[in-house]
Every structure is written in structure tokens, then in C-alpha cells.
């Protein structure tokens, strides 16, 4: 248990996850991939924090580290429990971790591989309830039925197996399972990116309804800015294992402070052709997380890079009310947001 109490529901301090690159017969460690490289974030109760970034930037790894589905290399994940005690998830032993997982659940990206094809819908949704000994027998049945209704599925279909359902329905099953243990906090790892656009909207609306109904807190991971804009209260932008900018959704979309955010925003499609701004095409490749460039990781692709960017790693600095960015020139640049 950690000493310092936190106000937010979840606070991440300097979280790191390095993957080792092994080589040769004896598996000598020849380097690291810094998938998550010293991230600081907080999530307040009842809000949705959007996490956006290119594929491979470490979004999913971050989400999994928070739940300790994979072991983080370093840092703290502070979680405030119902009783108001702050717990450092990274320090928990197996038994305590099992208890805390009742409060934190996950919705997966791929609705096809996240449901065990050999279990009926009832067993899939009921599994967390049975494991955590929340209910059994008739009570279990009633609870599963309630959950199925809540996510908008037919109670008659409980005996079916996942192969009977479409992607959107499967995702609803996944959401019902995540809700089964009454969690406070849910990591939604690209929950809609595997779905058709029409179904995406349904699932997003469902998630918003559930958030209101059960007072849920989301960490919503996505690579799709329009989805993020729709659902998030605040947005964090990730680039090569680091959060480069964090702000309220509106603030971030209209007044970005990091050149990478600006480039991302310029790629959001708009309906009105007159409003389309000139798209900023980033040159070069995404930095290799195993061998990142010196200084700011983004400087080789940045249009505003100066000498300092090539040598000195920028600090995580406050650039406005509730607005942070890691850029040397955050204060002086006047970047374009969504117009």
C-alpha cells in the first residue's frame, strides 16, 4: 500500500515497460524496446481519458500494464479503492491483485479472439462472477441475464456459442463480461476499431450509456481521432512510448501545443471541403523504439525542430490550464487545430 493518497481514481507515475531484444543461442540481451517509456497520467472518477497514437506507439502496452496483464518494468500505478485507500497496483501480490481486478476490467480490441469459442455466452459472462465468488446458482443466472439485457442482447441467446454472433454482438458480450464484476475503471483497448462504422456508433453510444448508468471511468484507447473526439473528456497523445500532449478534448483539438498533435489533427477527414486544412504530411518513419533518436523523439519528422530538439530531451511541462506537452517550443509555437 502506498502512503500518498491521490485525488484522481487512477494515477500513473513514470510507468515503464521495456521489452528485451535477445539474440543468439544464450539469449543475450542486446537492447530494449521502450514500449512505454516513463508515462505520467491521471484519470479522474467518472471521466473518459482518450489515448490516441499511431499503431505501435505503445497504447495497448500501456493499457495492459495498468491492469498488470503484463508486468511493467518500472513506475507506479496508483489506484484509489472504494474505501478511499490508495493502492500501488505494481506492488500487489497475486492474491491482492485478484481482489483489485474486480474494480478494473478490460474491453478488448478483437471481438473474435477475446471470447473463448468453446464456452457459451452464459459461461463467458458468468466466468468472472464465478471466479470472484460473487454469486452462484439462481443468483448467477439472474445476474448474467441482467447484464445481457443491459448491453442490449437477447436473453434467449445465452446458450449460444460465440460463433453465432456478429462482431458488434460479440463486442457487446465482451462488454457484458467486463461489467460482470461491477468494476469502477475499464480499459477499453480499441473497442470499436474492428467493427463496421455503423456498428461503431452503436457500441460507442452503449459505452456512454453504461458510463452514466454505472458511473464508470474509461481509459479509451484508439487510433481514430474522430472516435476519441466523440467519447473523451480529456485526450492524451502518445508517440513512441511517451505521452507528448495531454489536455481537455476541446482544448487539444482546437489549440494543440505539440507539432505531432497538429499533424494528427490535420489528417482528420472533414465533410466540408472549404474547411479542409492543408494536410501536414510527416516525412520519414516513426522512430524505432529500440533505437530512438537523441533529444526529442519527434524531431526528425518535426517541421518546427531547432538545434535544441536534436540534443535535449524535452520535459513534461504545463503549457496551459490542465494542458501538458513535451515540446521545447510549446510556449512559442502557434499551431493549428481543428477549425
Amino acid at each position: 500500500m502506498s502512503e500518498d493518497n491521490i485525488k484522481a481514481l487512477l494515477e500513473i507515475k513514470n510507468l515503464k515497460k521495456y521489452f528485451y531484444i535477445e539474440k543468439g543461442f544464450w539469449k543475450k540481451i542486446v537492447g530494449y524496446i521502450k514500449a512505454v517509456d516513463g508515462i505520467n497520467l491521471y484519470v479522474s472518477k467518472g471521466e473518459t481519458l482518450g489515448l490516441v497514437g499511431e499503431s505501435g506507439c505503445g497504447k495497448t502496452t500501456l493499457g495492459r500494464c495498468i491492469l498488470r496483464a503484463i508486468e511493467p518494468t518500472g513506475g507506479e500505478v496508483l489506484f484509489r479503492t472504494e474505501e478511499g485507500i490508495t493502492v500501488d497496483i505494481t506492488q500487489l501480490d497475486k492474491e491482492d491483485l485478484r481482489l483489485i481486478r474486480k474494480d478494473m476490467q478490460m474491453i478488448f480490441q478483437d471481438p473474435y479472439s477475446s471470447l473463448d469459442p468453446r464456452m457459451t455466452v452464459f459461461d463467458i459472462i458468468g466466468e468472472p462472477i464465478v471466479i470472484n465468488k460473487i454469486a452462484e446458482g439462481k443468483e448467477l443466472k439472474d445476474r448474467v441475464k441482467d447484464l445481457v439485457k443491459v448491453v442490449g442482447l437477447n436473453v434467449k441467446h445465452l446458450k449460444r456459442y460465440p460463433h453465432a454472433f456478429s462482431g458488434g454482438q460479440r463486442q457487446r458480450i465482451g462488454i457484458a463480461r467486463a461489467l460482470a464484476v461491477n468494476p469502477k475503471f475499464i480499459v477499453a483497448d480499441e473497442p470499436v476499431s474492428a467493427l463496421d462504422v455503423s456498428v461503431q456508433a452503436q457500441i460507442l453510444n452503449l459505452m456512454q450509456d453504461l458510463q452514466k448508468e454505472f458511473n464508470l471511468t474509461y481509459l479509451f484507447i484508439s487510433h481514430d481521432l474522430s472516435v476519441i473526439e466523440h467519447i473523451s473528456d480529456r485526450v492524451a497523445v502518445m508517440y513512441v512510448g511517451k505521452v507528448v500532449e495531454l489536455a481537455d478534448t476541446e482544448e487539444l483539438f482546437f489549440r494543440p501545443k505539440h507539432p505531432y498533435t497538429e499533424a494528427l489533427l490535420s489528417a482528420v477527414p472533414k465533410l466540408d471541403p472549404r474547411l479542409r486544412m492543408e494536410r501536414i504530411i510527416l516525412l520519414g518513419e516513426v522512430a524505432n523504439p529500440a533505437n530512438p533518436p537523441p533529444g526529442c523523439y519527434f524531431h526528425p519528422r518535426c517541421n518546427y525542430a531547432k538545434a535544441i530538439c536534436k540534443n535535449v530531451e524535452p520535459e513534461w511541462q504545463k503549457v496551459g490550464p490542465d494542458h501538458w506537452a513535451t515540446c521545447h517550443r510549446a510556449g512559442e509555437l502557434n499551431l493549428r487545430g481543428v477549425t
Partner: protein
Amino acid sequence: MKNKQDKTSLEEKYYIASQWQLMWRKFKKHKLAIFGGTILSIFYFITIFCGFFSTQDIYKRHTQYIYAPPQRIHFFDEKGFHLRPFVYGLKRKIDPVTFRRTYTEDRTKKYPIYFFTHGDKYRLWNLFPTDIHLFGVKSGGTIFIFGTDKLGRDLFSRNLHAARISLSIGLVGVFLSFILGCILGGISGYFGGTVDMVIQRVIEFLISIPTIPLWMCLAAALPPHWSPIKVYFGITIILSIVGWCGLARVVRGKLLELREEDFVMAAKIAGATDYRIITRHLLPSFLSYLIVNITLAIPSMILGETSLSFLGLGLQPPVVSWGVLLQDAQNVRSVALHPWLLIPGLFVIITVLAFNFMGDGLRDAADPYK
């Protein structure tokens, strides 16, 4: 209207079909596999009751009928059709120069075949003394459907009894490799790291040894004074020493693949213990693959036993297996003069093919979700 209802209930049946039901649906479509499976069921059924299905005692010597050819079963004689089948007696002629025996049908002697007749005594499953056979002729007559061997013993009965050893050695051997393969492959895949590397190198080493010489060395090491039962188990262990390697690799590969599946992580996040994840999620997922591999591993076991026994290194007479029976067919002379000695080889081929057909169908059905 009724038609529509039927259709929806059919669909619903598909939706609530479990993994095994889906596999069975797919397997049924594989006609060749069903055919192989049927043949195997018949073989194993006959093997279980081999005393009943054989016509006589397998050690009984008919000294008057050495190397007798198969007797044909007739329905017609000079008087026309008979509902009850019969065999003609055999007349032996010995060439005074070469001492070669030739047999001709003796049309004057006719032995009708009776069903559920009393014949040689035997013990069913070594428990129940009885003398009832499925079919046979009245005493005084002879019936050699597959002919006789060099001691005048009935090859039909011997083949049926040989099947008991040859067909079961595959199952027992595979069972041993299954245990070894699951444990070692499971350790390899679940823990990974150094243990994994050591086990994988051991497997590579074992696979690289030519099997026949290895088996020969090991079989030669079996003490000669052992009872047939001990030799039988000795041989199965020898066969499974190599057999487990392939299985261990399948188990390891599947474990590595499944460990990364989202539903395993979902169970972990839901708070499931390792034991629950292994028994509820991992095992059911690769059980079907194991069954396929076992089915495809049995033929190589049967072939291994047959080759060892054929070379005189496996089971020894008086025990009968198909390989032991084939020992009599080792020289060109006997093959040329007494081709019926090769019948056990035919059984081996049919069995191995049937297993492969069935395994093929099972492999197609193993993952109904792809």
C-alpha cells in the same frame, strides 16, 4: 410456415452447438474418414472377440495340412445352389522328387459351415471358458479360410489373434507418448526459457537418430528370458521413446499460440488462477489437435511393431502379431509358393490407411472455428 420454423430451429441448433458437435458435423462430411473409421471399428470389434470370431485354436497343428492353401467357401455344387455355404475337403499330393505338397479340392467330401458351432475350447478375455465360435465345420472337416502355415496352424484364426497385439500396441504406445508428450511439451511451452531450450534440443536429437537401428539396439537390450507380456510392454516403451517427440512439439506450439490469445488474457484479468486457465481454456482448445495427432501417430506405432517383429527383434513366437506372422514370409520361396502368408501384410496396410483417412478427416474437423 412450418418450413420456416424448421429452418430457424436448425439455425438455432447450429448456434448452440458446442465444439465437439461442430467437429462431428464437419467430420461427417469427410466420407473417406467415415469409411476409415468404420473399418477400424469393425477391426477393433472383431479383435475384442477374436476367440469367438476365429474358427479354431491358434496353436492346434493339423499335421496333415501343412502349407494348405485357403479353402474357398462355396454356395454351388453339382446339384446347384445351397443356402448353407460349405467347403470341400483337401486332397494332398506329394511330389516324390521335390517333396512339394500340392493340395486339390476333394469334391467327394463336403463340409457344410454352421454358425455358432461348438469347436475348440477357449477363454473369452481369459475369463469365461467357452467353445462357441461364430462359424465352423463339424469335427472331422477342416476350414482354413486363409490357409495354414508351415506347422499346419490355421492362419485365419492366427491373423485375428495377431490383430489383438498389433492393434493394441498402437494404442498403448500412443498412450505412453501422449503422457510423455503432454508433460514435456507442456513444461516446454508453459515455462519457456532454459527448460524449453533443453527439451527442444533433446527432441531434435531423438528425432535425428534413425529409428530402425535405435529400435534394434533397444530391442536387443531386452532380456531374453522375459515373459511375452513384459516384452510386449518393453516394445511399446521403445516405440514411444521416439513417438512422444512429435506430440510434445504440437503441445508446445499450441500452448505458445494460445497463451497469447485475448481470451486467455481476459480470463487472467477476470482473476482466474493458472490452474483454471489451463484446465478451462487451454486444454479444451488443443485437445482436438492432440486427438488428431494421436490418430496419425498410431499407424507409425503399428508399423514400428510390425517391422521390429518381422526382423525378429520384437515379439517372438509363440506370441502372434502381424509382424510375427510375416516372419514366415521372409524368403522368396514361401512368397512364391505360399502367397497366403502375406495376408497379415494386407491387414497392416488396410489398418494404416484407415487410420490415416480418419486422421485426415479429424484434422479437417479439429478447428471448427476457422
